[in-house]
Each structure stands twice: as structure tokens, then as C-alpha cells.
């Protein structure tokens, strides 16, 4: 039983003092080489990606980047990617597959950017292609949800063999504010929405949406980065070792079947054979 309510957890998940993708990369990886641009039209800093070593092993690492100060927040659009970001992620993941590198992603975003240019350049198409590509990758993919993972903009980096989640992170179909305003026409009821959305790591573990919950310091990840890094590092080592025993097609199959099963048995309950 957690000592925090879902609403308090969402607050913790959004705490700007939590470590982000850039911090995890600095702490857990060596030899990071940032890769930029989607090779089509632009570079979106709200997605950070590149190659690095993880315990000596070359890997591809991709994550949402919110930025650390206002200037960087603005440059990174507060972690809300545009299609160029998702297309860069696709490029990096395709390359990872070519070179047989495992992929590690860090998820922390209020959602994909709902802007005019983002729509014109095919935000929906860019996310869809991420999902399709990731579902079939023949290398190990591990996603870590570190802060808030909202909507398709988060899922686009989280079609993984293992989805891990920090204890006080949140992962949901939409922000609680958006959820409340769609269902109840009242964004002010976001707190109430947190209660019904089943967006905590514990609920999601129970629902089979995430495969591991990673312990945070009592007061949240922002209070002791070193402890969080140790926990995430150990989890990645363990999961990667397990996944590296599987061959490429088996990795794609395991991932496919895991997502294939989500929401399947529920509908099956009242199914008639046709």
C-alpha cells in the first residue's frame, strides 16, 4: 500500500527536481554520443537520443527531454515532441536494429505537442510509425517511465519488451486535466480524475501494463538522485541480461504478444464464437 494518493503521485511525477533523461544518461552511461535530426526536415530537442555504453555494452538510448531551466524548457517545448522528434527516434531505433544494439528509452512527457506545425507535419502519422516500428524490432527494448507519461506521445517511446516504472511516476491515456475536461467538461476535477484513471505504477503493474515497479526514496525521486540511479541501473542490468538470451525474432514475438494481450481477455469474457 502506498502512502501517497494517486493525486499526490501525479504531483510527485511532475516535480521538476526529478532526474530526467539527460540525468540518467550522464549517471548510468558512458561515452554518450548525441545524435540529432530526423534527416527529413528538422531537429527536435524535446527528444534526446544517441549511442552510449551501458556497463561497457553499446546501446541506443532515447528519451523525452523537458529541460532544466526556463531557457531549456522553452527550447525543448517542455518535453512535448513534434513529429521531427518522433521521426528522429525512429531513425535511431532503426539504426540500433541494424547494429544489434539494445534500446533503452526514458519516458517523461505531458504529451505530444498539440501545435499547428506539428499537425501539418503529421503528428499522428509520426506516432503511428513509432508504434509500428517498435512493435517489430529484433533487438531488446526496455522503457523506463520516470515522470509523467501522457497519451500517445509517451506510448510512442514505450512499446518495449519490458516497461518499467518509477514508483511515483504516472502513466495514462491523457493528462488528468484533459481527462476531466473531456469526460466532465471540467478540468478543475483533475484530482478526482487521478483517483479513477488507474495511473499509478502499482495499478498498472496489477493491470499488466507495466512489468516492473522501481522503488523511489520515501519522499520521491527528487530527494535522492543517487538512490534512484542505483535502482534503475540494477533493474536495467537485470532485464537486459534476461532479454539478451532471446534471439531477434523471439524478442519481437515476446513484445508483440505482450501488447496483443492488453485488453484482450476483457473483451473475450462475453465473446461468442463467429
Amino acid at each position, binding site marked *: 500500500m502506498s502512502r501517497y494518493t494517486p493525486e499526490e503521485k501525479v504531483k510527485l511525477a511532475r516535480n521538476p527536481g526529478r532526474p530526467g533523461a539527460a540525468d540518467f544518461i550522464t549517471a548510468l552511461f558512458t561515452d554518450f554520443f548525441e545524435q540529432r535530426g530526423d534527416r527529413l526536415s528538422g531537429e527536435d530537442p524535446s527528444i534526446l537520443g544517441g549511442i552510449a555504453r551501458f556497463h561497457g555494452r553499446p546501446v541506443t538510448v532515447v528519451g523525452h527531454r523537458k529541460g532544466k531551466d526556463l531557457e531549456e524548457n522553452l527550447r525543448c517545448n517542455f518535453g512535448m515532441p513534434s513529429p521531427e522528434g518522433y521521426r528522429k527516434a525512429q531513425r535511431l531505433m532503426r539504426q540500433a536494429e541494424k547494429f544489434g544494439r539494445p534500446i533503452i528509452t526514458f519516458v517523461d512527457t505531458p504529451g505530444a505537442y498539440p501545435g499547428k506545425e506539428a499537425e501539418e507535419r503529421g503528428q499522428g502519422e509520426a506516432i503511428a510509425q513509432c508504434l509500428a516500428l517498435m512493435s517489430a524490432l529484433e533487438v531488446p527494448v526496455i522503457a523506463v517511465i520516470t515522470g509523467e507519461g501522457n497519451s*500517445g506521445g509517451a506510448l510512442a517511446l514505450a512499446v518495449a519488451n519490458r516497461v518499467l516504472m518509477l514508483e511515483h511516476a504516472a502513466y495514462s491515456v491523457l493528462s488528468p486535466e484533459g481527462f476531466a475536461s473531456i469526460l466532465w467538461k471540467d478540468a478543475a476535477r483533475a484530482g478526482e480524475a487521478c483517483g479513477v484513471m488507474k495511473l499509478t505504477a502499482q495499478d498498472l503493474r496489477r493491470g499488466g501494463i507495466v512489468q516492473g515497479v522501481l522503488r523511489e526514496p520515501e519522499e520521491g525521486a527528487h530527494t535522492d538522485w543517487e538512490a534512484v540511479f542505483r535502482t534503475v541501473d540494477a533493474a536495467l542490468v537485470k532485464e537486459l541480461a534476461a532479454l539478451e538470451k532471446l534471439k531477434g525474432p523471439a524478442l519481437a514475438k515476446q*513484445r508483440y504478444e505482450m501488447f496483443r494481450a*492488453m485488453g484482450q481477455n476483457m473483451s473475450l469474457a462475453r465473446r461468442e464464437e463467429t
Partner: protein
Amino acid sequence: MNRTFSRRRDRLLVYQAMREEKIAFSRRTKCPFCGTESSDLEWNRRLWVCPRCSFHTPVGAYYRLANILDPGSFQELEEGLSPADPLSFPGYPAKLAGLEEETGLKDAAVAALGKIEGRKAVFAVLDSRFLMGSMGTAVGEKVTRAAEYAARKKLPLIIFSASGGARMQEGIFSLMQMAKTAAAIQRFQRGGGLYISCFTHPTTGGVTASFASLGDFLLSEPGALIGFAGPRVIEQTIKEQLPKGFQRAEYLLSHGFLDRIVPRSEWRAVLSQLLALHEKGGRI
């Protein structure tokens, strides 16, 4: 194929289609776009495309199929698939039951096997009368099973989308249907399957950002609103008014995200041409 069965299926489809449109011969209906009133008889004759402004109003899934498929070829797939309530969301089961009563649909998607000019294909059609065609577990599962069925039978897959996006009442399980359907489509396509995705008004959110955008061919009805974020959310975000025609099919066509715009009366001809072009045979 047994002729009695196929006749019965046909009557069922026509009955469903009529029930959907509730055609009252004396009634007049206003166009939601331009406001012009026309008789339902006229509306129906034009497949619910406005006689005045050509706005393609949303139509039911069975009605759409009845107007596209060869007579007698309709065979519904997975019709028993029912929605779930994974969040135990207050009032949701009652809402689903009410909509089933009202529309005759169990959820917002219909899957079928059918023929167009003699060529077999698997169809999935979203129906916006059912919670805006939003994608919950039942819609995700139906689209996935349609893709799997098409893969097994080595048939082309044709999907008509109309959706407000994720089904909020099913929370994260709704979100996961994006990954599930995209994965199923990807697997079908890698196996050599032909997937034609047809957008209709309106298609937004998680459906645009998953299976609907993954077609080997992307087609749309005229004037359809297609996007990830809805126009209201965008205007609130950027605090300016969007240009006229933004996110409409014609806008997407000019920005490179559609192959072609297809008026409702031409679906049969266009789909037939594409199916024929993917048949084996022909030699130079």
C-alpha cells in the same frame, strides 16, 4: 456459397443500414455544415452527402458497408465481441447498454468479410454514433482480429476510420490499443498484406496516431477532419485562430499525408481498382 444464407445476410445488412438511417420519407434533415434542409429521401439518394454543399455527413457502419459491398457478399466477423469496463468507471456500463439499444451496435466497430466487384477483402468500419467512434478495448480488439483474419486468409484489409480518439472511460487500456493495432497492422503488412486506410469525418487522436495512418494507401472522404490533436485544443495551446480548412482532408492532401480524396459515391470504383492492381498475374 449457400444462396439462402447469402440472401438472408443481405436482408440483415439492408435492415441494419435502414435502421441506422431511420429513413422517414416525410422528414427533412438539416445539413450540419451549411444548414440547408433537404428531405431524407434526397439525403439517402445521395448517400447522406449534402445536396447543397457536398458535406459528407457521418454514416453508420452497416449503411456504409451496404453501399460498398457486392450484394450478398456481406459476412460479419467477430460480431459477438463486447466492450469491457476495465476501470469500473461510474456509469459506463449503463452508457454502453443504452448505446447498444439505440444503435444496435455492441461497440464502435464492425468487421466483415465482403466483396467488391467479385474481389474478396476484410473490412473494419468505425461508427461515430457510438461514443464518437472512440477506441476502447473492444474496438482495438476488433481491428486487431480483422488484421489477423486478413493475414490468415491472405486477403486485403480495408478500414474506414471515424473516431474521436481514445475511449477515456477505459483509461490506459484504451491507450494500449494504439500499440496493439499498430503492431497487428505492421505484422500483416510485413507478411505482404495490402492495407487500404480510408479516413472519414472526423478522425482524430489515438486512431489517427495508430492504425489509420499506417495504410499502404491513405484515402479520405472530402472535407473530413483528420488530426492528432483536436482543433479546439490546438487553438487553446497556440492562442490563435487556425486557418480555414485546417486539418481537413484537402489540407492533408496538400501537405503530403493522403494519396487521394474519394467522394462517397466513388468508393466502390476506387477500392475495386486498387484491389485489382494488387492481384497476381499480368505479364509483359
